[in-house]
């Protein structure tokens, strides 16, 4: 029994109110409560990420039905589906209805309700949570457009080459819990199973790491400046020796108390290694330096979403998180709550993420902001 058309599914028990819980997490079609929501089905081309979206469609609201066109339950919608959500429709269903298309196998299950109401789109905005840009499902239609006929052929521009096949039985198991879905699990005929790396979602690169370490001994800065290479010491201006090494290319501020700040490394390991090299230099100069309390204090990453962004719209929708003063600074300052990082978002589509203590925070932040930014694509 292949449910290859949403229509059949609609009949099969997704009658209006109750999402088909019994389907578990299977079947792209099944979870979509309500007919219109089957739009989601057609966009299972997002690979692993998208499938999971289906899986998360456990509507546990008080009978919260994914009303027409609102496929987004409380959980995230992974899906290269352009959901034209009449805002009201969306919000009525889910208290925390957030469109977080978590792309990438690993981040599939992360839908955080913290990052602002991504789904609060104005009627005009076309929420395109398409993870796979190649298959932008611009389903057209107005808000709440329902594709009763999910025949790929009939869907016009998008390459809905994805038949509405429910996932194989074993897939259901996979969707239980929060396992990342390996792309191999998706039957290729159902989805163009592309690994996250092949999906066009960029991933942030680390640009700078600032760390501190305590060498544990008082230092004579003048002696260090006189005997070490590549050192600057101008006590009238700044009470520390500024030393640099070439590999890894970093700069260190060494204070007389023995504490040191190491900046400029491109990874946590490089920062630690550089700090050790500085400690070694100090040691060679005759001080009994130790290497204690190494801690990464700040990490900066950057990324390019490769499409222009409407900062004004983003600022209005996410007013509680955003600061946008174009006369002061051309970028929008987005203070994400979880993880607690700050993102600088620019019109060009470049994003800078800072304030993180771990790389994971940068990756999480970017995966949360990406769908939001897609919604504000110019």
């Amino acid at each position, binding site marked *: 029994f292949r449910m290859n058309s949403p229509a059949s599914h609609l009949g099969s028990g997704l009658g209006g109110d109750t999402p088909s819980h019994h389907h578990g997490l299977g079947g792209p079609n099944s979870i979509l409560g309500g007919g219109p929501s089957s739009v989601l089905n057609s966009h299972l081309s997002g690979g692993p990420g998208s499938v999971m979206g289906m899986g998360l469609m456990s509507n546990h609201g008080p009978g919260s039905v994914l009303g027409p066109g609102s496929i987004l339950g409380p959980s995230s919608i992974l899906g290269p589906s352009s959901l034209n959500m009449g805002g009201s429709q969306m919000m009525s269903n889910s208290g925390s209805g957030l469109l977080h298309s978590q792309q990438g196998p690993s981040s599939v299950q992360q839908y955080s309700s913290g990052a602002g109401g991504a789904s609060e789109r104005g009627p005009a905005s076309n929420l395109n949570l398409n993870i796979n840009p190649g298959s932008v499902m611009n389903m057209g239609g107005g808000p709440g457009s329902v594709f009763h006929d999910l025949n790929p052929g009939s869907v016009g521009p998008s390459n809905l080459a994805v038949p509405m096949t429910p996932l194989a039985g074993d897939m259901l198991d996979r969707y239980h819990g929060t396992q990342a879905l390996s792309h191999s699990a998706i039957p290729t005929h159902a989805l163009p199973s592309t690994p996250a790396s092949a999906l066009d979602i960029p991933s942030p690169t680390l640009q700078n790491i600032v760390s501190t370490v305590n060498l544990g001994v008082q230092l004579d800065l*003048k002696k260090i*400046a006189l005997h070490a*290479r*590549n*050192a600057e*010491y*101008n006590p009238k201006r700044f009470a520390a020796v500024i030393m640099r090494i070439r590999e890894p290319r970093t700069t260190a501020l060494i204070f007389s108390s023995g504490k040191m700040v190491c900046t400029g490394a491109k990874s946590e390991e490089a920062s630690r290694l550089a700090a050790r090299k500085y400690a070694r230099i100090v040691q060679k100069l005759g001080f009994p330096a130790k290497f204690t309390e190494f801690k990464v204090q700040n990490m900066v990453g950057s990324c390019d979403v490769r499409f222009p962004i409407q900062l004004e719209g983003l600022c209005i929708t996410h007013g509680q998180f955003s600061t946008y003063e174009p006369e002061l600074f051309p970028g929008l300052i987005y203070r994400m709550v979880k993880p607690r990082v700050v993102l600088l978002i620019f019109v060009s589509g470049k994003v800078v993420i800072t304030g993180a203590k771990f790389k994971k925070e940068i990756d999480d932040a970017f995966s949360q902001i990406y769908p939001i930014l897609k919604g504000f694509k110019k």
Partner: protein
Amino acid sequence: RDPKMTYQLYRNTTVGQALQQTLNDFQAEDIISRALAERVMATFDKVINKTLNTKAKNKMNFKAEKLRAYRFCDNVWTFVMEKVEFREAITAPKERLKIVACDGTNKVIAATAAVNP
């Protein structure tokens, strides 16, 4: 009274060394006293600093492949460069070049001007 303090940096130049030698010879022959020799050197310091600041107008450009090391301590910059080529190509490219630069704004005696790494 103390003469105005100036860098004794230029004593280690060709002309400075020549002057120092001559004064030493005179002192050896008891023609002049030690104090006078010292006075002459001090005058030399003052004049050469002033002249280089005001009268010397020509510039020299150079480009080096690598900055081996730098240092800034006691208001003195020291640079060690490799493979230095001078713009006017007066000399062949130098394998290693050391520059010791003292602050030209404040007149500070720089007995420690020459930093020996």
